[in-house]
């Protein structure tokens, strides 16, 4: 015991930049693991590819046939912006299930025993899930184009819209990580996702304009971050956006509202996720 305990690693003190560099490297290693997981377990990928695709087809051809967009315009042009909002919620749900799986299998315990930073474990997860969000966006764009949706404004605006989607998806994945850490088992995480995320998607302007909703519900829907993202996309792609006639502040400034929501969600859920990771995985 005497010879081994004095090995240099115990006495080594690391400088801050060096620690930050390794934390960054570890985040990338763990992000790569997340991607490998997507490749090897396509069920997770189906959630962000096939599910939005089915929703687009259902809403365009089934529900859409009975929905009139206030102020004119095609429903399929209206819908796709909402679908981008729905995709980011699906991504957060995927994070919740993924994190709770890692908790349940004990993998988080392995990570805790390794000399790696807490933020690397969560950051790696979030980055991998952002990649699934990118895949979801690509699938949606292709599906949208196939059903007749078009980007009418310039490339700049389109890039800005996709950027906003990724920004708020990034913030939402931290909320998903918190949920996954709290429930600790994948089935429960999926159930929690259903209970919280589904209303989040439906009580918004994702599928139908909020104008026809009861007044109290309209307030909720108009201030829903998903509505802000959907309106931003419609606005920036030049699609019909009846919400622009709504007086509620987020509907008048959807892009700014999306950014503020992202900052707010990040400020709350990122530290909370790190806190849960520290406490829960003991």
């Amino acid at each position, binding site marked *: *015991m005497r010879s*081994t*305990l004095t090995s240099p690693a*115990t006495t080594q003190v690391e400088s801050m930049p060096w620690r930050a560099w390794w934390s960054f490297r570890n985040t990338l290693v763990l992000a790569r*693991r997340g991607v490998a997981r997507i490749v*090897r377990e396509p069920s997770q990928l189906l959630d962000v590819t096939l599910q939005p695709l089915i929703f687009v087809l259902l809403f365009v051809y089934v529900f859409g046939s009975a929905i009139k967009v206030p102020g004119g315009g095609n429903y399929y042009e209206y819908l796709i912006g909402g679908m981008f909002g729905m995709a980011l919620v699906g991504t957060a749900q995927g994070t919740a299930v993924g994190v709770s799986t890692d908790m349940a299998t*004990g*993998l988080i*315990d392995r990570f805790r025993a*390794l000399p790696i930073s807490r933020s690397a474990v969560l950051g790696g997860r979030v980055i991998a899930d952002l990649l699934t969000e990118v895949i979801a966006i690509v699938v949606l764009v292709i599906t949208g184009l196939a059903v007749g949706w078009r980007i009418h404004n310039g490339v700049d605006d389109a890039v800005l819209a996709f950027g906003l989607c990724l920004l708020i998806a990034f913030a939402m994945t931290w909320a998903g990580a918190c949920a996954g850490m709290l429930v600790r088992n994948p089935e429960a995480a999926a159930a929690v996702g259903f209970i919280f995320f589904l209303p989040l998607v439906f009580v918004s302007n994702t599928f139908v304009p909020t104008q026809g909703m009861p007044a109290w519900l309209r307030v909720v829907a108009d201030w829903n971050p998903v509505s802000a993202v959907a309106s931003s996309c419609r606005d920036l792609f030049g699609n019909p956006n009846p919400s622009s006639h709504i007086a509620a502040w987020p509907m008048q400034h959807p892009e700014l509202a999306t950014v503020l929501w992202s900052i707010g969600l990040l400020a709350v859920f990122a530290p909370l996720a790190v806190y849960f990771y520290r406490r829960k995985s003991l």
Partner: protein
Amino acid sequence: MRRNIGLAGQTASLDESLTGSGNLVMVGQLCRLPRRRAQRRAEELLTQFELADAGDRGVKTYSGGMRRRLDLAASLVTRPPILFLDEPTTGLDPRSRLALWDIIGTLVADGTTVLLTTQYLEEADHLADKIIVIDRGSVIAQGSSDELKAQVGGDRIEVTVAAESDLAAAREVLAHYAEGVIHVDPDRRRVDASVPAGARSIPAIAAAMSKAGLLIDDLGMQRPSLDDVFLKLTGHSADPVAVHSEKAALA
């Protein structure tokens, strides 16, 4: 601190969606090995743990014993000088258990200090240099396996005579060499007692028996098992027991 410690728990802490080698490479990289070296180390460990053929398969397809071995391999990527094993063989089949014992024995021989907890006293007896028995949260005994066994009275001699009528005579002969109570079991025609001199007293006892004209069917030494020790110490059957294996003195 964490760099000097390896940890393997009761359940395998692995990424089910990765391959065996993928898990080890990931751990290696997280422990700051460059990719190439992490891969080489993964190959080494897979070979050492007889998982080389399964390295490219998903962990999902692994059996319980394979998972446990891979989990142990993952905790050894950085060759930690201290290794904590929490009931490493719980729920394993006998073959996997023996294989894992071999591996742990090799690690200890190479200078790793292993702290392992187990409910199986046989495991403690086999692996540990120093054993700490914990019952209901407090340490009730510690020492080497031999020291603990000596606490319950050391070696016992068992003599089986050919005829039941000889039992009394056999008991009398044994009384000269034994200490404590001499048990007589008429059904098995057997007397047994603890003998302080251990196996060295066998020839003398055998000679004395034959001198007394006793016909002996069987005569042998019985070492107490750690189970006996535990029962004696606690007065009830086995609760979780912590065992401390420390070969560091050899390192």
